[in-house]
């Protein structure tokens, strides 16, 4: 019987044909935590009674969520993580280096690997054909100690992409559309595997955005096959030798197949307070907006800021605009290409590479009743630090067009 990408990666890892629905113990290639989940992982690790990391150079910590820290408790968390890194040899990504998921795809994730991270959007690395999934601190502590995790092999849903996206319609619109169609738990315990000729038209940034949000439909991860686009990206990041051709078998068995015509996707928006509460932007037009945020592990990459520049160049914003590059690399690349100048002249505020206001700790907390349109991946009540705030999720293009007019705006109209 043919194998899905999930079955291929997982079977190869344990040299045994895995069976969907069964629990196995898998070895992991990378294990990581961030500054919010790391301290608990460290505590659990220390209580396990295992005195060494299974693989220090493959154990990573990212100081990204509260970075630089806005209060002493968080500074203490950073301190604790640094000390742990010194003692056990784990790699620490310092403040300002960027968001864990972006740094994973820039520096680590490669096709065929298993990656576990103490952060739900670990699935971002699925864009590079790694079986990457978010877990809690205890799983991560055990993976740090033993280099292993327990996992139940999930079935896959195949999403077949056709044609290409229209101008100013982005990967974010596609994944919002998919989540709207599937529902917030439509893919629970399942993997979303992307396929079809439409893949060719999706660059790596697009794929990161899509894989990143698969968890918002409840999926264990999202997987793209490893093709020419993957190869080129890995070469650009200096690890071309990690490329392997990795596709599902032609006769693989999926739980479901869904066909998506990319040319029919329109700019989408998720309304408060759930990610599957999705509408077309043109159906909600005219909503007054206080703050726009372009950033995060979903929508803070160079192509996201470039489209914002295209829309905002030489103009002035009418709502507050916060700009958060996903990593130092993105920040530097954007600097060379002059994007920050355009966005700052338009009225934007640039924050350091990291999660910024995404999870409501600092740098853009909403006031009561305020409306924010954000390129992030979650709009749960209270997410941006205030349960009275209203978060709308949209593409970076829609965000930029919205900042420009001060009202939720279809980017094809500016």
């Amino acid at each position, binding site marked *: 019987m043919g194998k899905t990408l999930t079955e291929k990666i997982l079977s190869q890892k344990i040299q045994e044909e895995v069976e969907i629905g069964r*629990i196995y*113990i898998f070895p992991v290639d990378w294990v990581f935590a961030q500054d*919010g*989940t790391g*301290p*608990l992982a460290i505590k*659990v690790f220390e*209580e*396990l*009674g*295992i005195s060494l990391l299974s693989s220090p150079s493959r154990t990573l910590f990212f100081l990204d*969520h*509260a970075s630089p820290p806005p*209060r002493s*408790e*968080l500074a*203490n*968390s950073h301190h604790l993580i640094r000390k742990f890194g010194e003692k056990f040899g784990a790699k620490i990504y310092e403040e300002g280096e960027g968001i864990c998921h972006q740094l994973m795809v820039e520096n680590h994730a490669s096709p065929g690997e298993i990656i576990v*991270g*103490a*952060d*739900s959007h*670990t699935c971002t690395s699925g864009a590079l054909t790694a079986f990457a999934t*978010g*877990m*809690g*601190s*205890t*799983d991560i*502590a*055990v993976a740090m*100690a*033993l280099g*292993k995790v*327990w996992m*139940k092999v999930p079935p896959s849903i195949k999403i077949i992409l056709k044609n290409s996206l229209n101008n100013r319609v982005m990967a974010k619109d596609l994944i919002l559309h998919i989540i709207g169609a599937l529902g*917030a*738990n439509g893919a*629970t*315990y399942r993997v979303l595997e992307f396929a079809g000729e439409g893949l060719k038209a999706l660059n790596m940034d697009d794929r990161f955005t899509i894989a990143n949000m698969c*968890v918002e439909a*409840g*999926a*264990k991860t999202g997987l793209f096959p490893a093709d020419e686009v993957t190869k080129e990206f890995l070469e650009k990041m200096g690890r071309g030798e990690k490329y392997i051709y990795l596709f599902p078998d032609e006769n693989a068995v999926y739980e479901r197949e869904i066909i998506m015509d990319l040319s029919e996707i329109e700019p989408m928006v998720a309304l408060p307070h*759930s990610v599957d509460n999705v509408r077309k932007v043109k159906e909600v037009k005219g909503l007054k907006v206080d703050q726009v945020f372009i950033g995060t592990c979903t929508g803070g990459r160079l192509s996201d800021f470039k489209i914002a520049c295209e829309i905002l160049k030489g103009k002035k914003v009418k709502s507050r605009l916060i700009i958060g590059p996903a990593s130092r690399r993105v920040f530097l690349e954007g600097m060379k290409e002059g994007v920050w100048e355009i966005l700052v002249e338009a009225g934007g505020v640039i924050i350091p590479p990291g999660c910024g206001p995404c*999870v*409501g*700790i600092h740098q853009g907390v909403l006031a009561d009743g305020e409306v924010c349109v954000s390129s992030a991946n*979650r709009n*749960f*009540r*209270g*997410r941006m*630090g*205030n*349960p009275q705030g209203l978060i709308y999720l949209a593409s970076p293009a829609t965000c930029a067009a919205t900042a420009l007019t001060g009202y939720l705006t279809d980017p094809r109209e500016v």
Partner: protein
Amino acid sequence: MAWRGKVHKFGDNISTDLIIPGRYFHLRGNLSELAKHVMEDADPDFVKKMRKGDFIVAGENFGCGSSREHAPWVIKIAGVRAVLAKSFARIFFRNAINIGLPLIECDTENFKEGDEIEVDIERGEVRNITRDFKVAFTQLPPFLREILNAGGLKEYIRRKKDFEG
């Protein structure tokens, strides 16, 4: 073994942000302090109303959102005996097992706030005493039950020093 307690009823898609808001991020180092805010954005009075041994009963997709293990932890530390829901989000599900918080997946439709219920883990049955009906639930796979019975994955590994099998 049967557990008896009151129902605290919640709806669908109770996210980890509702279970423990990100604005308390700074308290994550102090779980018992953090537990004072459990379910705060879903029901601000929950901590006042609940008694040790009570149950959280919810609809679909309980625990969706972030991977914060603090979410099942604060529920457990607050004294909730088990969470019953129609379905659980994936990461929350494994986190709860890993920390030893029992989860019961069953039809929760007819449970109401304040109902007195009895959960029999061995028999896979929930009895609603107030409304006099029973619902059955499927037992966890043996490996996960073993983890739960050990008191969580940490205790399991502490004892065995490795996964078995």
